[in-house]
Structure formats: C-alpha cells, structure tokens
C-alpha cells in the first residue's frame, strides 16, 4: 500500500497540484472539526440557535424549512454530532486520500447545507467549497498521493 502511495506520483503525477489542494482542504476541515470538538458545539445548541435565526428569512423550499424546524432544531445534539463526525471523516479522507470520491459528495452536501443555513457572510466561502468538492469528486483526487491509488489499481470502478 505504501509502495502504491509513492507509485501514484509516477502514474498520476499530473494530479499532484490537486493532491496538494486536497491535503490543504483536509487540514482545514480537521482544524474546524477540532475547534468544534474542543469547544461547546456539542454541549450548547449553537447549531439550533444559528438555524433558528436564519430560518424566517430563508430562501429555501418549504419542505426544507419544515424539516429543519421540526427535526434538526428539536434534535440539535444528534445533528451536531453527525456534522462533527462528517467533518472529521472528510478531514481524514482528504488527508490520506482514502475514499475521496464518496466523501467529496458528502462534502458537497454539507457545503450546500451550510450555504443555505450560514447566512450572507459566508456565501462566497461555501460556494468555493462546493466547487472544490465537485472537482475532487470529478478527478478522483485521492489517486495521487493517496490510498485510493492502491484500490484504484486493483478494483477500478467509479468509486475510486
């Protein structure tokens, strides 16, 4: 597996710049996740409060608003745990280049949700993230300098 990791530079070397972007994104997500973990993200209903603030003026489908109000806010703790877990998963996935394609889709979904719920100030950031995740999924960014190359060689298929 280690040999494949290094071999990937030889065969998929044109993806090295993307690999660096992937690793940078992984590090960014890890930082954000650690901040949440060490803070009170799980203990206090910050997520619920934030959503409750933006909900009235939200430009989203009705079913999304109802879902958010009735389920996400009521069970904010579970959703906070899921959000934190997914951020850690994306971080580890991008850092090691493992199961990058499916995680990129998850990242895409999270970024879309954050774009809707975060309010006006972070719009540009999340739009950029959406583009980055989409690109990661498209090129299969885990294949260069990542563990995905090992599985890509043996299994092929759309997920590697």
């Amino acid at each position, binding site marked *: 597996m280690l040999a494949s990791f290094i071999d990937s530079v030889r065969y998929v070397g044109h993806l090295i710049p993307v690999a660096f972007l992937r690793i940078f994104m992984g590090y960014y997500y890890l930082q954000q996740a650690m901040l949440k*973990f060490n803070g009170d993200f*799980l*203990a206090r209903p910050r997520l619920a409060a934030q959503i409750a603030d933006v909900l009235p003026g939200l430009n989203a489908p009705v079913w999304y608003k109802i879902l958010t109000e009735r389920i996400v806010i009521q069970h904010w703790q579970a959703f906070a*745990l899921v959000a*934190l*877990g997914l951020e*850690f*998963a994306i971080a*580890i*996935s991008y850092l090691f280049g*493992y*199961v990058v394609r*499916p*995680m990129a889709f998850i990242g895409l979904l999270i970024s879309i949700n954050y774009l809707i719920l975060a309010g006006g100030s972070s719009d540009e950031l999340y739009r950029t993230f959406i583009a980055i995740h989409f690109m990661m999924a498209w090129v299969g960014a885990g294949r260069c300098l990542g563990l995905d190359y090992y*599985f890509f060689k043996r299994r092929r298929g759309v*997920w590697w």
Partner: protein
Amino acid sequence: MKHFFVFLILVFGGLIAAILFRQNQDPTRDARPVLRIYAPSSFLKAWGPGPWLKEKFETSCECRVEYHDGQDAAALVERVKSEPKSRAADLVLGFNQYDLEIAHKGMEWKAIKVDSQNFDDTVRPLLSRTSFIPYDWGVLTFLAHKAEVPVLPKTLDDLLNPDYAGAISLQDPRTSSPGLQFLLWLIQIKGEEEGFQFLKKFAPQVKVWGANWSTSYGLFQKHQAKITFSYAASVVAGIQEDPLSDIVALPFAEGHPLQYEFLGIPSTCQNCDLAEKFVGLVLSREGQKVVMEKNFMFPVIHQVMQDSPFDKLPQFTTIDMTVIPNLAERERILKKWSQLRRAE
C-alpha cells in the same frame, strides 16, 4: 462502497469514544457540583421517589444529583466503601435498623441536625442517634387475597391451618430484611425455642422462601401464593394498580414488627452542605408525601399522612422494637434457621 461505509463507521465510532473518554477524564466539564447519593434500587428507579426528589432538588441547588444503586440495604455499606474517591458518597439512604451496626462499624458518619418536633411520635425515640435519621417506616404483616382466603388468619398460630398449606410466600431471612424481621418477630413473640418449633410446623405452609421481597410479593401478585409477608402499605399499591384488588392487610393479635429506613451522611462526603439540604428536602412535607406515595411506606413527619389512602388502613398494634439483636446474635439465629431448612 463497503470501504466507504466501514470508514464512516470507524470515524463515528472513534468520535463517540473520544467524547466519552473526554467526559470521563474531565468531570468538571459540567461545572456544577455533583451530589452523589447511594440508595436501594426501589428508591432510585422510575417508580420510586428518587426521580421526583432529584428533579425538585436540581431546580434550586445549582448542582447535579447523581444516583448510585446500592442494590439492597445489606450490601449498601460495602458498596459505599468500595467506591473510588472520585465517586465517594455524599448521602446514603436505605439502611434499616438492623443495618446500623454494620454501618457504624464500617464508616464514620456526620451528625445531622433535625427539628424533632416535626416528627411523628412513632419515630421520635429514634432521633437520639444523630448520625442516622429515619425518613420512612412501615408496619410488617401478612397480606392475603380475600377471595382466595375465605377465613382470614388472626394470629400466628392460625397460619398453621392445613387450608394454607403451600399457600404462603415468605422471604429468606439471610438475604431479605422483611424475612429477617419475620424471624425475629417470631422469636420475640414466642421465645427462641418455641419460635423454632413453630417454624418446623410452619414449613409445609410455605410455598417459597424468596431471595428478596420482590420475588415473594411478585408470586403473591400473580396469585401463585394466597398469603405473603409484606408491608401493610402494599395494600395501597395493590389498589392503585388494580382498583378491584381484593388484597387485605391482616391485623394479628400478637402485634406487628416495624421497619424503619434511615439516611446518613458519610464523613468522607465531598458536598456535605448539599447533602444536608437534600436531607431537608426528603424530610419536608412535600418530600415526605412523595416518599409515602412512591415508596409505599409511612412518613416520619406528622400529619403528612392525613387524608391520604394510607390513612384509611386499619390500625395495627405494634411491638416494641428498641431491643435489636447484635450482628453475632443474628448470625447465630440465621445459622439455626439454615439448619432447619436443610433438615426439611
């Protein structure tokens, strides 16, 4: 896809483990002080008075109440002693009068100040022990299903009637405090030799010597036994569960034994002030009402029982319980009881 799902499971598993580990390592995360209370299962469970008392106390104390299950009164002291310092008990509830000797030997206890004027006359003499304060009491007697026992026994000797053969559920005195109470009651009324002679004749009447009160009472509830030895207040519990219940408490001419339940604050308490405030709540009129209604025992504060279903129970003649055999004496009696069982 398998890799993806396994990866997600591992990440979430690791995260949950990390959260639990962090909570465990750092109890001050929740900055409120923690009041650790040890009590028997019957007190702590959803059907006992524990949850109400906890909720009520937490609204005003700016603290967290943490209950620990001591299982039964006999093992309570051992449980309290064996816990590590980080989980040291602040308050212990559930000792009966036979456990106090073990409690005293095992640990040091703080004196608790109470206003004896509020207490019922039945329990006021017990307040001389300042380390252990009674918080409820009960009368022990036989209960019967009226429909299944047309002729109700009125004395201990009436229980030897062949009609009751294999119909009585009792408790093992080695493992159950009501069981021990029955044995000591018998010896107090009849004397030791005659008491054991009675037990020999009584053996065929007993369906089961249950390991604890729940087993023998449960069999009685399920009509597997017609008569059981229990607390007089259990009648109220029976009626609450089933308004058509025909359970009756039987007053005996010989008089009845009493059981008192005590609480104490160990000298090793970490939140001793909070423990004293909690004691105050348990002994308040409101707290006593809840203890009475959920524990199905009589309150120690007078006039709490007025206008309640418990007030409608028949009056029972009680016997003097001030002389309590010491541990060595009880061991000797229990050994003699075991020999009797073996010879059956």
